[in-house]
């Protein structure tokens, strides 16, 4: 499974990459939204991990850009957020086609399991 991680925190990208790689998955990372969109459009990823709180081009901006092109459904997006975003707001986002979400800090076992579930379409 090919996974793209978009997070401005490189440490998190490294952690997620390490954990996913250990589970036998291929992981690519982007440290801002614009780069993430570029990669999404260039490559085909099974799951996209998207951090909402990023400076300049945030996760919301990424979603907005994807929504415009009708690509949210296609790209099995899992949101990763540490911000005090409410459940309602998340539910709204889930309605737009986002597959799942995980609040930081992550339990890495739960994380891997969730990503694999989303990939399987559960």
């Amino acid at each position, binding site marked *: 499974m090919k996974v793209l991680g978009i997070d401005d925190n490189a440490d998190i990208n490294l952690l997620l990459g390490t954990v996913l790689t250990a589970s036998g998955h291929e992981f690519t990372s982007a440290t801002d939204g614009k780069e993430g969109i570029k990669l999404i459009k260039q490559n085909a990823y099974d799951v996209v991990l998207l951090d909402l709180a990023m400076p300049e081009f945030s996760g919301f901006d990424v979603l907005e850009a994807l929504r415009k092109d009708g690509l949210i459904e296609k790209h099995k997006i899992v949101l990763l957020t540490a911000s*005090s975003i409410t459940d309602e707001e998340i539910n709204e986002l889930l309605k737009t086609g986002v597959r799942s979400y995980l609040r930081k800090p992550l339990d890495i076992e739960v994380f891997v399991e969730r990503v694999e579930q989303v990939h399987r379409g559960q």
Partner: protein
Amino acid sequence: MNGKSLSAPTKKKAGKLQRQTKPTKKYETPKKELEISSLKKRHKIFYDELPGLLRTIDTDGNIIDCNSEYANTFGYSKKELIGKSVFSFVADEGRQAFQDSFDTWLKTGRVKNKPVWFKKKDGTKFLGLVSASNLYDENGKMIGSNTLIKDITEIHETKSKLEESQQKLQDQVRQLEKANTLLVDAEQKYENLYNKTPTLLRTITIEGILTDCNDSYAKALGYTKEEAIGASIFDHAAERSMKDMRDNFERWKENHETEPAEIWLKRKDGSVFPSMLSGTSLYDERGKLIGRTLALTDMTEIYEARNKLAVHEKHLQQQLAQLQKSNDLLTITEKRYRTLYEKTPVLLRTITTEGILTDCNEAYARALGYTKEEAIGMSFYDHTAKSSVEDLKNNLEQWKKTNEVPLKEIWMKRKDGSIFPSLLSGASIFDEYGNVIGRTVALTDMTEIYEARRQLEEKEARIREQYDELKKIDTSKEEFTSMISHELKTPLTPIMGWCQALKSPKILGELSSKQLQALDAIETNAIKLKELVSDMLDAQKLDMKRMKFDNKDVDVTEMMNFLAQNLQSTMVPKHIEFVNSTTEKLTLKSDRSRLEQVLNNIILNAVDFTSAQTGKIEIRAESKDSAVLFMVKDNGIGIPKDKQSHLFTQFYQLDTSATRKHGGSGLGLSICKGIVEALGGEIWVESDTGKGSDFYFTIPKQKKIQLTVEEKTNF
């Protein structure tokens, strides 16, 4: 009568008289001379002594002879008398009659038996009745007569008196007759009056029995006259007048006077009517009271009229009273109005439609610095600040159009040119035809209000500023909390994630036990940090009332079982006995995850303050009234009474070694309180030092959860 009176004395001396008559006859046959001589002698004696006045006259009327009585009566001597004319003895008033009589005698030889007034020598007069027997010569020629004069003065007088008395008698008789006629007339009239008068008349005895009554009376009482007579007056009196009647009757019997009284009479059919009673007493010939006649005037009409009058009068009086009252009220109102106008602190002015002041009160004049006398007559524009003249003009125009004085703020100008704000309000004044002739305007000095308003505005502005500032602070606090949570959670993600990854041999290989121990310490503290951040966020949300709650079916029994199982591992290190004693089947409409959070928090607190080995924690939920009562009971160190009130406030921590060991945010119980209260329940603790702690909280079974609404403050 004359004859009779003459013959009477003659009869008394019957013998002499008869003899007198015989010689008279002998004179008529004077042939027997011898007899004549003796006769003459006897005659002489008879002649002289004959009572009565006797004279002998010739046909010339001269006296030839007379008797003594004649001479005596007339007051002459016999000698004086012989030869005298009889006319000299006649009174003036008898002369004519005597002459006639003498003439007649001369012609016919007959003497009229007619009384003649004679005159004596002393001038006194007497009435005499003359009778005569003629003397003839031998040839039968009448040569004179013997004349007897009878003094009939007394008879005459008696007769006169008799006649007079007869006349009087006749007069009396006539008068009597007349009186009688009048009496009859009067009686007739009385009878008529009695019977025909419209006044009700009745005559009664002293026993009160009717002896008579008139037609009007009978008719008025509905009886026939025959029926009425014989009845008692009390039969004809109404019950209500019985006493008056009796009193009147008794008083009449005492003093014989009938006092006028109003008496209600009773008709045969029982109906009654008022009457006015008056009357006169009747007496017998000895002056004894035998009855009275009463006049009863039917007062029905008078009563009706009087009643009507009384009603009219009453109406009139009522109207008068009302008039008086309204007049009084008017006066009072006027006075009040005047007083109000004069004494009210509000500035009042009355103006014509042209804006000229016809009146104003002291307050007005004083406020504008004029005397009242100065102010009246001025135009109201003179009292208006330049800035408000236009407004006032519009106000006046609008008023003229609508008759209503629009409320307006007007700046007034004082005599000294200074100005002040006022609120103008007023009412139109109409003439009796309803035309507007002016208006009275109240001007409320707004200076203080303006000042107050300015101060208020200032205060408002300050408060708004403070509010904005607070809001900003709040916002920044929120932003800060939000930022903190993000900024803290972000680094926690790799820390906790790497700890986990390191502990997993298949990711980064095996670690030594010492390395694992160090890694555990890092991870434990990272978790605490994570919890701290969560608590901060929850506390923030509760403060801002931004925490959102579910309102779904919660299976309380199942939840308690889940918690008992889930937290069992937590009890293992300290070997605490952990029991769920919930027996009831309970359900709620609430937010399960928040309820779990509260229970978790209290249970973990209990774990911290309960001794190892001997510690015991019991949890239970039970139905209590319309709520579910949750209980977390431990046999730990307990909480001193004086500290319990602060237990649920933010950042309050008991200063104990256990606390220091436990650490924590100090927000746990305050968050519990916030959540319970937000869910409509209550939370409290029952505890004391060394006696363990019992935490309770209730959640209503059916509570419409308050939807969080952002606080709105509008100034």
